[in-house]
């Protein structure tokens, strides 16, 4: 397991806690619900074996799609074992998203998005669980699928100047989950410091070809040639982030704390402050891309194409 995955394991306590609370709120568990939970946890296989990665995602993605499509169309109870299946999956949805975030160690963007999605899934499960015990897994699934709709309504209320008290993501027990979520965020930050895996960081626009002749099968170099080969700088790969990355880490932690403090003092300015910060940082990125390069004296051009210069000694 590489370091990015290892750091993101900090996401599991928050997701596990939310799923545990969700499971406690569901009434009788059947075989179908257990299978649904198993489908949500199946992507764990992909963490162990890359060749089974895609296979592990198919059942969970199918159940998630069925849940949101069916519950988006109708609010009637879903009959039969399907209700149990999607109910079990809904309970374990935070773990499903957390495993997805842990598995996406080669794409930092996807990892960040999935990390936040897993935290939101945990919040949704906790919101449903805090509303009271669900009669069955199917009922839990229906309530879970309604959370985004209720949250959107609450957001619309806030944006039009109303109160945000009805937002389902705010109706959760604060302390345990928030602490675990902050731990997960810290794990996500540390995970971003981990280096890319076996990719080709030296790909700089040329087509890279493997040597046609395997080493050791053809050698006719004289002593001079061998000594020249020995002059080569050893090929090495970065093993850790630059020490200066600690500055970015501190800045990120400060921004997160600032956001939390701002939310506690004046929540109304939170969205505006976040938007300002985002715009300022995007502008900084664009400005740094446009930095002028230092002009330099051009070297004397050599013949670029065509045959060798005539008359040059052999």
């Amino acid at each position, binding site marked *: 397991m590489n370091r990015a995955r290892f750091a993101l394991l900090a996401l599991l306590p928050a997701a596990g806690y939310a799923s545990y609370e969700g499971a406690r709120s569901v009434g009788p568990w059947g075989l179908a619900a257990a299978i649904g939970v198993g489908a949500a946890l199946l992507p764990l296989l992909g963490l162990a074996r890359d060749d089974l990665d895609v296979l592990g995602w198919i059942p969970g993605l199918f159940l998630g799609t069925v849940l949101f499509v069916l519950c988006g169309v109708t609010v009637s109870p879903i009959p039969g074992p399907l209700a149990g299946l999607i109910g079990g999956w809904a309970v374990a949805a935070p773990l499903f998203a957390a495993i997805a975030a842990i598995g996406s160690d080669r794409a930092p963007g996807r990892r960040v998005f999935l990390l936040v999605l897993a935290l939101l899934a945990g919040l949704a499960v906790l919101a449903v669980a805090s509303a009271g015990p669900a009669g069955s897994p199917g009922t839990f699934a229906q309530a879970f699928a309604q959370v985004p709709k209720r949250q959107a309504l609450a957001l619309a209320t806030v944006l039009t100047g109303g109160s945000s008290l009805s937002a389902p993501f705010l109706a959760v027990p604060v302390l345990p989950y928030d602490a675990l979520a902050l731990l*997960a*965020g810290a794990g996500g930050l540390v995970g971003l410091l981990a280096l890319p895996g076996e990719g080709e960081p030296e790909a700089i626009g040329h087509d890279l070809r493997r040597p046609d002749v395997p080493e050791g099968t053809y050698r006719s170099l004289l002593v001079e040639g061998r000594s020249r080969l020995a002059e080569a700088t050893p090929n090495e790969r970065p093993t850790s982030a630059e020490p200066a990355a600690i500055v970015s880490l501190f800045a990120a932690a400060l921004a997160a704390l600032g956001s939390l403090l701002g939310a506690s003092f004046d929540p109304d300015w939170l969205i505006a402050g976040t938007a300002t910060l985002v715009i300022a940082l995007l502008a900084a990125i664009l400005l740094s891309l446009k*930095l002028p390069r230092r002009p330099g004296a051009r070297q004397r051009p050599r013949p670029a194409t065509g045959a060798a210069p005539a008359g040059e000694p052999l």
Partner: protein
Amino acid sequence: MITRRGWGAILGALLALLLGVAALNPVVLAVATGLFVFLAIEISRFHVAYGGLGDDSIHAERLPLPARLPANSELVAGVDLRYDGRAPAWIALSDVVPEAFPVTVGPPRTVARVEPGGTLRLRYAFRPSLRGAYVLGPVGVAILDPLGLSRIVLRPPASRRAATVVPAAIVAPHVRPGLALFSREALGIDLPRRGYGTEFRSLRPYQPFDDVRHMAWKRSRPPTYFVREFEQESRQTVLAVLDLTPSMGAGLAGESALDRSVEAASVLAALVARQGEDRIGLATVSDGIFQFLEPRRAGELTLVRLGDNLAMVAPRPGEFHLPKLLDELRERLTSPTHVYLFSTLTGPMTGLHPAVVQFRRKGHRLRTFVPRLSAFYPEPEETTGLAALDWARAQERRRLDWTLHVTRSEGIVAQAFDRRGANGVVLRAYGAPRGGLGA
């Protein structure tokens, strides 16, 4: 520039922020904000640190490489990169190697952390396997962000190097590994230096630059004077003639009939150069004479000229016509010449007899080296085409027998060679007029 990974990270962080805002949950929003701030500052910091690097910050210099590379040799190439930035950097250095140069040792790229004022050395070995003109380079340099979010690509000027791959026998006369394999004892040939010839050839009118010691006093009547001319056995004139018609392209790349003929012609040139006094020229033929390098004393520059031309020889459309070629050569060659013709002789032979007679009357001698095309056809990878290939080989053998029969009946020395090359037959043929084994 920001890499695809970097853009993906920014997009993912923005989406996460959007989710955080929509959730109206301060903790989730704080987490998303922290992640976005980290990514944004990392990307900006990298560009602030290295974005200002200009052409004067890196100096790429190639290892000296000969302008003419011997085919099928193994050479070490490399680039030294001096880095004059302000902060240590991870630098990737890459060189573009033509496909005709299989790399034998090490990939032509490297990555290392370089301190300001430090040097990154790239070394690799390659094998120039096909004749022709190529360009090594350009060199690519990239400053890498260890996290893979950003990258700065620099193109150092003057990082290309033109190289011509010439037959090995042409390059490095003091080495010539190809010839070293053929010792005089091994082949039973002898290449004696006889000095000036003594065999009388003819009389010709006196010219002001003639040595008076050669004056034929008994034959001269004032005001008409004659000088005696002698056969100069040690100052031979040799012309290598290459047939460029499509049939010479039979065989695999680098091992075709034309490639083997070029190798043999270069061995011939090297042999002539070793004599020191003989003259060597080159002609290529398709419909008619396409290229004609007049025979000159086989010095260093002549070899360079021959090597450059032999490097670029390639099949051309056209039909080979031996009698027409002999007529054209007769008009162009001013002194008796040994003509070494490498050709499949696939064209019409009409009018061969009178052409050969007139060619000989001028004192020229013709030797032909004919590739056995049936031996150049590559074996098919599947068994389905075997029957057709056998039939084609049989037809080709029959044609070759007829061609050799026709040319030999005219008294022309004709020898066949296969995909292993014509060096041996050319060595024997060259030794023959100098007292070695008969051709």
